[in-house]
């Protein structure tokens, strides 16, 4: 279930990159000078970082890490 939710989150964020709703307008100017389209894409970058945190937390390929660690300890034992 966790995996399905993460896949949906990745696809959703990719789709949200195409923000057609702010295509033709600069308003509102956030902080009085940042066009909304630019502000949205900056927030998108923060959201991407949060998604990466979720992937690292819930979908980290632990098996690869363990396999290498196991191999290393075996090698150390033989030496």
């Amino acid at each position, binding site marked *: 279930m966790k995996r399905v939710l993460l896949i949906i989150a990745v696809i959703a964020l990719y789709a949200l990159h195409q923000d057609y709703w702010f295509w033709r*307008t*600069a308003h509102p100017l956030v902080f009085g000078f940042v066009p909304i389209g630019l502000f949205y894409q900056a927030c998108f970058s*923060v959201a991407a970082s949060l998604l990466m945190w979720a992937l690292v937390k819930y979908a980290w*390929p632990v098996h690869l890490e363990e396999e290498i660690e196991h191999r290393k300890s075996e090698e150390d034992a033989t030496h």
Partner: protein
Amino acid sequence: MIPAIFVFLYLAAVLYIGVFAFRKARGRKEAEDYFLASRSLGPFVFLFSLFGTNMTAFAILGSSGHAFSNGIVTFGLMASSSGLVIPLTIFFIGTRVWALGKKHGFMTPVQMFRDRWECSHIGTVIFVVQAVLLVPYIIIGIMGGGTTLNVISGGFVPYWFGGAIVALVVMGYVFFGGMRGTAWVNTFQTILFLLFGAIAIVVIGAGMGGFKSAANAMLSSPALAPLLTRERISPYYFFSYTFIPLSAIAFPHILIFCLTAEKMKHFKKTVIFYPLCILAIWLPCVFLGVMANRVTDIPEIRAKQEARRVLATQGKSMTPEARDELREESSGDEVIMLLLQHYAPLWLAGLLGAGIMAAVMASDSQILALSTMFTEDVFAFYGHKERFGESVQVHTGRLFIVLITIVAYVVALRAPETIFELAIQYAFSGFAALSPLLIGAIFWKGSTKWGALASTLWVATSVVAVAVFQQVVAAPAPGPPVVIWSLNGAEILSRTPGGTAVLGFMPVVPMVIVSVLLMLIVSLVTSKPRPQTIAKYF
């Protein structure tokens, strides 16, 4: 001249870092230490060096220049899409390649392909295509160095001398420090990049009298208001750009960097912070590039705006050569340097100039990657390592670094910069279309060497075809594209002012899709590697 002194001090610092790294390297296994820093980079250096490796001159100079001409769309096109796609590829592909490298001792992507698909000469074909696509970066880095030193010193340092200094410094620390030197220099450079954006926006914002009035003035100007929206950019074009960051993980220097981490957990910080690092560098540069359009007291920027206006109003009646000349004049690559020279105090302009220099000098990793590929994929693969030993292999790698830098410098002196800028444009698409090779090798048991060969040949052919097409059909004036081939009202192939469109998309989209299809179809009908080979990977 004061800013140039800061830049020279910076160059001395990076050279010192490289030589220092060389001293640290003594007493370890030679080839792996020189080319991969003994696979021992810690989390901090790994994050900053991997990020710095991927940030070229374009991150600061090109992004602000593109934003100056095209507006806020630059950030969505190139930064936020990369902030999603690149860490995803590092998460899914980079970690797996790291694990395979640790298990099987790979030092280059081609070594992995050769082993995974039981092939030899097909690996050599992939090496050649990767190397040819990588060389323009090294040349453009030297050109950028020459131009930047020339501008920062107010013309005191000639282009040829500036290029020579940059080439010597980069060659010096890559030669002595290998991967460890390159990684440390990249870490130092990335910290400079990150400081650059924040300081530049404060200093230039204050100099311009605040951004609020500038933004409102732009909104009230019919010519400038569209730069604060994306109305001049097609949604197809915007969507196409999300394919370009696939190139990052397929670049040999990035993939080789993935092999340098000491532990897999070091990828965690890189994956999480990558989008934020991109945000910290690109947002100020893009914003300043857009705001430069409101600057009225810098004659060079006014001249660029005038060239843009003439191109838009009279471009259709001009010859292609005259249009190209005006495009060059209106190009905004140096707007950020002009803003700094005008609004920052001299000492600060010098420090920020060093930050720009750091971005320009990102060709170090490409030089080292080419050297690693040559010594591992050609020198060692064809038996010379066994014959002459590992020391000779490292010496050969160092000799290769000297030769490639000299060749790149000579070419940089003689050839026009625009040719290599174009080549880099094609190279991004080319590497993006090579990414199915990695995905096939790591995630699909059914992939074969023939599928990989078909994809690689398709990439080479399509890159050449797009280059030839854009040389033969001149770029039209700003406005609607010139349709070259249409079918039942559908615009199949068009020449746009900025490049080529296939069914409205950038060429990278069909290039990647066809590459995937070729990998799939050809692999399905050809014989697989032996089960014991496949078992090593799955």
